[in-house]
């Protein structure tokens, strides 16, 4: 039945979208606060993927527990990168921070490659599945989806209710004014960057719960592009927009793959990858500020 098939497709897309969204929130957070585009975004996702991979294959720790570990790793990396590199580029032209995040991503990829080699790896974690009638959902994907939503909610609470979150919002609103009011703007930048990276690395773990194969040092590139599409869809400066952008993207990507698979003479996988880019161009052409009205 076509209706059932569509519904099943939609659910799969939504579930995928949650994870995509969670993995992109860090990108939007960093841009929203520091006005820096983290061009090395994908490399941090890769770090998260490797974290999950190693914890599972070497220590038998399941990916759910890898999430907090990934967050800590990400926070550490984020602070390190900020204080060593990004801090000095606050006044520099945009080009500098673009190249810097690019360089950091490159460095991560090469380091991982040297240490772990460039083969493709994966892990196999099976915990059954959920039969929804219209479609079948592996439990791992469900966990990833729930985890993603949880992360988004926690971020929201932190952003709105804590003092640190308020300091962040004041800096976004008016950095100079915040400084005058006694907010340590540099600390806010460092913290935002670190949390953004933390979210990204964590997102990598969640993504592997979805796709536990193909993990290699250079896997990040694909996700950088997708993250940009999602972030722009959601309005580049808003983490919540990114989450919803992820949902939209997930549905479209999943749906287009299924659709393209029915067309003769094209290769659905490759064409779906090209689709990300086409979507980006279209959005930038007609609505660069994103689909949603964020304040």
């Amino acid at each position: 039945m076509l209706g059932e098939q569509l519904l099943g497709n939609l659910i799969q897309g939504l579930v995928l979208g949650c994870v995509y969204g969670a993995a992109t929130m860090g990108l939007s957070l960093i841009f929203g606060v520091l006005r820096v585009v983290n061009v090395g975004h994908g490399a941090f996702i890769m770090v998260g993927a490797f974290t999950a991979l190693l914890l599972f294959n070497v220590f038998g720790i399941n990916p759910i527990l890898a999430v907090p570990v990934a967050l800590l790793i990400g926070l550490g990396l984020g602070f390190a990168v900020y204080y060593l590199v990004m801090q000095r580029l606050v006044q520099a032209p945009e080009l500098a921070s673009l190249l810097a995040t690019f360089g950091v991503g490159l460095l991560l990829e090469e380091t991982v490659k040297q240490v772990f080699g460039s083969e493709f790896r994966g892990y196999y974690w099976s915990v059954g599945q959920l039969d929804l009638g219209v479609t079948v959902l592996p439990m791992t994907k469900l966990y990833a989806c729930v985890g993603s939503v949880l992360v988004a909610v926690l971020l929201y609470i932190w952003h709105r209710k804590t003092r640190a979150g308020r300091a962040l919002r004041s800096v976004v609103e008016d950095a100079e004014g915040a400084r005058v009011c006694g907010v340590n703007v540099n600390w806010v930048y460092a913290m935002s960057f670190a949390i953004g990276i933390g979210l990204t690395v964590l997102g990598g773990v969640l993504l592997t719960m979805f796709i536990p194969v193909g993990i290699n040092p250079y896997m990040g590139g694909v996700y950088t592009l997708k993250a940009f599409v999602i972030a722009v869809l959601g309005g580049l400066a808003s983490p919540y927009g990114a989450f919803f952008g992820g949902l939209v993207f997930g549905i479209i990507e999943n749906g287009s793959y299924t659709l393209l698979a029915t067309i003769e003479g094209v290769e659905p996988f490759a064409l779906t990858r090209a689709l990300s880019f086409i979507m980006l161009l279209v959005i930038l052409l007609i609505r660069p500020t994103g689909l949603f009205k964020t304040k």
Partner: protein
Amino acid sequence: MSPSRTRLVRYYALLPVLGAYLVLFLIGNGQPDMWQLVAMLAFYCALGQAFNLFLGMTGYVDFGYVAFAGVGTYGMAISISHLSAVEGIGGWAIVIGLLLGTTMATLLSLAVGAVALRLRGAYFAIATIGVNEGLRYFVEGARIWNGSDGIIFSRDLRLIFGREAATALSTFWADVLVLLIAALAGVVTLLFMRSKIGYALTALRADEDAAKVMGVNVTKYKIMAFITSAVFAGLLGATAWALKLTYVYPPDVFEIHYTVEAIVIVMLGGVGTLLGPLVGGLVYGLSKYWLAVTLPGFQLLIFAPLLLVIVVLFPEGLVGVLKKKIGNRPLGKFIV
């Protein structure tokens, strides 16, 4: 009346550039076993000069730059593979290949530019980051130009030129063309610097909004630099890739790796300068060659932190630092 040092950039600033390429050629020509190295250095210098035309003059990073070289490669490949059936086509196949490659690069740059160049810095980078990948997967996915099978035209090349000449073309003349492209890119860079275009680009690179207030049509000039840079990339792909390898596969020619190298070369040498890409190309090429021998597989691991160091500590690159040190001496006139 004090003599001005910032009058129009003089043509003699080209001397070290053209001289270097000539020297490279003479070395390689005189020592045949050095030709491989010379060819590689020529490639990196040309890549740098071409990329610098846009990055250096506008301050915008096009992360998808390699796509222009990719379509240039296809242009040559398509030309040769289709024209081999034409009797006595000879050298025209190359000419048409170059024309086709540059036309395709121009069209692609217009398409990308139409969307991306209306956007500011960060958004522009985002828009371009998927160009090469998107194009690669589009070619493979929609199976155009033979899709993921690519085009192999070594046989066609031999058909057109005969075995001996075809080999000479792939192993010698293609590289000579690359040297010429590098030199030409240098000349164009200087011409830009001397002209209204160069001044407009300087203004928009420094402060885009103030430039607009001063009457600079920033979009127009960005497009000009973008297309010029893309055309040179197309020429490079058509010669250094198509003619040398005589085959083209999507994953090879749309590989972001080359954009990375271009960025490192230009930043290392000195972004926005005339000599920078040349110096950067030589240093990078030689280092890579040496590293490949001594520490294979480590190249990018070394260049990545190097890029970071340059961006954070020495954004003006080698030539920039050199300019500061000896810019006031007589020899400084040649360092542009």
